[in-house]
């Protein structure tokens, strides 16, 4: 997994101007970049932001094609395509625009509702869907930065949700204290489940990919057993494998009043993002993490205790994913949880982390984008009958396209950045290759 850190190392020169503490200030361009208008245009056209936007556009186009070819109206109109082609195009337009309008109205702003406060409700939905995605995405991203691939989000979330839920429904504590203790317990649960992986890797050399996959199943069956066993997590007097509802004191309060679903969890996630940003870019621990992610051999030679760092990184990574798990029971589904409480977020988080290039704020934005897709996807499914699975297709295509800028450039016939004098060509080209010396 020594290449898992690649997403954040594929930096563009524009990003590199913001120096990270680990970097030497040698990145100051020795050559004056071309200041002419065409140079600026070229810079914009080859920049990362444009690639990202175009990748989103490409993915949406591909999704549109899928929606169109599977649409009933389009298929019935295409039977007589050669006699009345306009019908087919109208049907295509209707199906695709209908779907994407619903996606927008379900995720950003609904113009059909009266007033701004009602219209903006979808966006708050987006943010509440984004909350666990960002938290778990941060956890996966942090592990990526240390060169670890944490596929164990599911298990860590389940354990965290179970512990936070257990504290949340079985204790009577004052308002505020209860919430914090349940949250802390959840984070600790996730951290332990993740830290176990780090410990096994550090002490025995067990491959973290296997161990996390295995622990996902162990956690799932453990929680499933506890949920159907009276006296453990099962709601008393019930036969369903479901826990009792949270006590009101353990539930995250609404952030914007009762008409919105956005809870305090979102604030916690912002705090977590700042924490990870600080940890990675400003702290000595984060520097060690990144050093190991870049090259564990070099880091060991430099005197960093690589094994301990693996444990710390997995502890923190698990803790962040634990925050997502606690948010599930304390913020999203407070009426009692089943064994599917993780809702696939542990796996979505990997895509979020990849899209965010394992950078804290990148993950934050990627989480909101995916949250928007999730929120809008449900509206689209309900109003247009387009299955929400299309969202998975669009999301994965976005990540694929963003990861392959040459492809996007080829599709849109953008100039290749190699024509522009680069400040640090080695950093761009030789990074992920087996360098032939």
């Amino acid at each position, binding site marked *: *997994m*020594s*290449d*898992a850190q*690649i*997403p954040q190392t594929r930096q563009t020169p524009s990003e590199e101007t913001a120096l990270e503490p680990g970097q030497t200030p040698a990145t100051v361009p020795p050559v004056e970049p071309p200041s002419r208008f065409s140079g600026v245009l070229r810079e914009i056209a080859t920049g990362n932001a444009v690639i990202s936007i175009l990748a989103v556009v490409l993915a949406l186009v591909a999704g549109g094609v*899928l929606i169109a070819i*599977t649409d009933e109206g389009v298929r019935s109109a295409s039977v007589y395509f050669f006699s009345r082609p306009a019908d087919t195009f109208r049907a295509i337009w209707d199906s695709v625009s209908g779907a994407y309008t619903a996606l927008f109205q379900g995720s950003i702003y609904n113009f059909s509702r009266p007033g701004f406060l009602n219209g903006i409700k979808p966006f708050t939905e987006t943010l509440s869907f984004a909350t666990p995605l960002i938290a778990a995405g941060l956890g996966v991203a942090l592990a990526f930065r240390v*060169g*670890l691939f944490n596929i164990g989000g599911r298990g860590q979330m389940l354990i965290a949700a179970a512990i936070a839920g257990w504290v949340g429904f079985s204790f009577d504590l004052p308002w505020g204290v209860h919430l914090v203790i349940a949250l802390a317990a959840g984070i600790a649960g996730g951290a332990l489940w993740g830290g176990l992986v780090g410990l*096994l890797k550090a*002490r*025995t*050399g*067990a*491959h*973290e*990919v*296997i*161990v996390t*996959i*295995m*622990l996902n*199943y*162990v956690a799932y*069956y*453990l929680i*499933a*057993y506890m949920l159907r*066993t009276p006296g453990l997590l099962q709601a008393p007097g019930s036969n369903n494998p479901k826990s009792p509802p949270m006590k009101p004191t353990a539930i995250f309060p609404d952030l914007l009043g009762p008409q919105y679903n956005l809870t305090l969890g979102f604030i916690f996630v912002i705090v977590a993002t700042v924490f990870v940003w600080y940890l990675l870019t400003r702290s000595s621990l984060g520097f060690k993490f990144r050093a190991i992610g870049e090259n*564990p*051999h070099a880091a*060991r030679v430099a005197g960093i205790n*690589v094994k301990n760092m693996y444990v710390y990184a997995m502890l923190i990574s698990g803790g962040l994913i634990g925050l997502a798990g606690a948010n599930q029971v304390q913020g999203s589904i407070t009426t009692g949880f089943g064994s599917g409480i993780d809702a696939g977020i542990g*796996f979505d988080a990997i*895509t979020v982390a*990849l899209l965010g290039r394992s950078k804290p704020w990148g993950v934050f934005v990627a989480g909101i984008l995916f949250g928007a897709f999730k929120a809008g996807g449900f509206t689209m499914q309900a109003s247009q009958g*387009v*299955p929400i*699975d*299309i*969202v*998975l*297709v*669009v*999301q*994965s*295509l976005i*990540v*694929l396209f963003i*990861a*392959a800028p*040459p492809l996007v450039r080829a599709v849109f016939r953008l100039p290749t950045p190699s024509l522009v004098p680069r400040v640090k060509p080695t950093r761009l*080209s*030789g990074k*992920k*290759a*087996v*360098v*032939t010396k």
Partner: protein
Amino acid sequence: MTTISESPAASSAKVVLQTTVVKSWKTPIALAFFSIVSLIAFGIIGRDGTSSFRLSTDTDFFQLPVLHAPTRATAIVISIVLVLIAASSAWLVRSGRKVPIWIVAVFAVLLLITFLTWASANHTIPVPGLLIGAVGLSVPLIFGALGGVISERVGVVNVAIEGQLLAGAFVSALVASVTHVPVLGLFAAMIAGMLVSFVLAAFSIKYIVDQVIVGVVLNVLVTGLTSFLYSTVLSPNNESLNTPQRFERIDIPGLSEIPIIGPVLFRQTIIIYIMYVAVIAVWYCLFHTRWGLRLRSSGEHPQAADTVGINVNRTRFWNVSLAGAIAGLGGAYFTLGSVGGFTKEMTAGAGFIALAAVIFGRWDPIRATMAALLFGFATNLQNVLGIIGSPVPSEFMLMLPYIVTIFAVAGLVGQVRGPAASGKAYVKS
């Protein structure tokens, strides 16, 4: 995948220039622990009654009698044997020798028999049924693991096994339903797996995207694509598009009548016979042919391979495609061999288990197959015990293979080392 830098004997490297005898007490301690647990839990605490094992099916060449054994006494006797094995392994380590792997294997099998004896008190365990189901459940895992082994040996990390299985399952169901010819479904599944591999290969080799990223994303893409098409296309036309004809069981004459082995190995569908051939072929070709040597050299040291005139990226591209085709076959087993019609996300994480089998099997086709069989066996053991009424909650039985794997990876396999250049793109300079 991660390569760990420290050599396992780094701590004992103080003894310089002498034959360092590394005495690892890990194995004897583990064996002693499990043998004592077995003695206490299954023997002394134990359960009374008679355990029965049915060894034959009705159509066997000759019938083996049903084996009856008094539960507690049998458990105690075997547990004592286990203790003796543990003691002898300790003696071996003490005298500076290694504990051979077959001792561990025998120990594991005996421990399993003790457990089965204990669990089946006053019940009958159908041994052939247990093993047949185990083989069936491991088929997709084995195909997936073979695909993973080839792909990783040539230098491309294949996290997309899940996607390849799922694509194979979807396309084979569709094609077999439309054409009513299951064999065509099989070919379609290979092509589908190959297409997924094409994307993996194109992005990781041409566009030099990180291979793990492409793999993870491809899983999501295929999951989304098949689920979407299932909801919009297959499910409304279930009769015409999603009712594939399944393969008939083929009994190999003669061989299929041998007790235990016959029904387990030689009364199966064509996919499983293909699997036998595939395992042997992949193993033989990988280690005994020029193709295999080139493949492995591209994954271990692409620069050296390039120097002797091997086109590394072309080798990688086509072998990753081959790996996808093999994994696609495993997907076809879901729809043409076992379940029938396609359902959303029907592979249910089998691709990830196959990935674990690849690493567990140390990138060796035979060992990976064994690891996959272990997973299949453990899953089916739970099914069988669930039917006869297991004394252990079913969740813990289901958990068992995963816990065993963690122990095995942490204790026995240890620091596994994949192909050196796996996961790294090769850019000729």
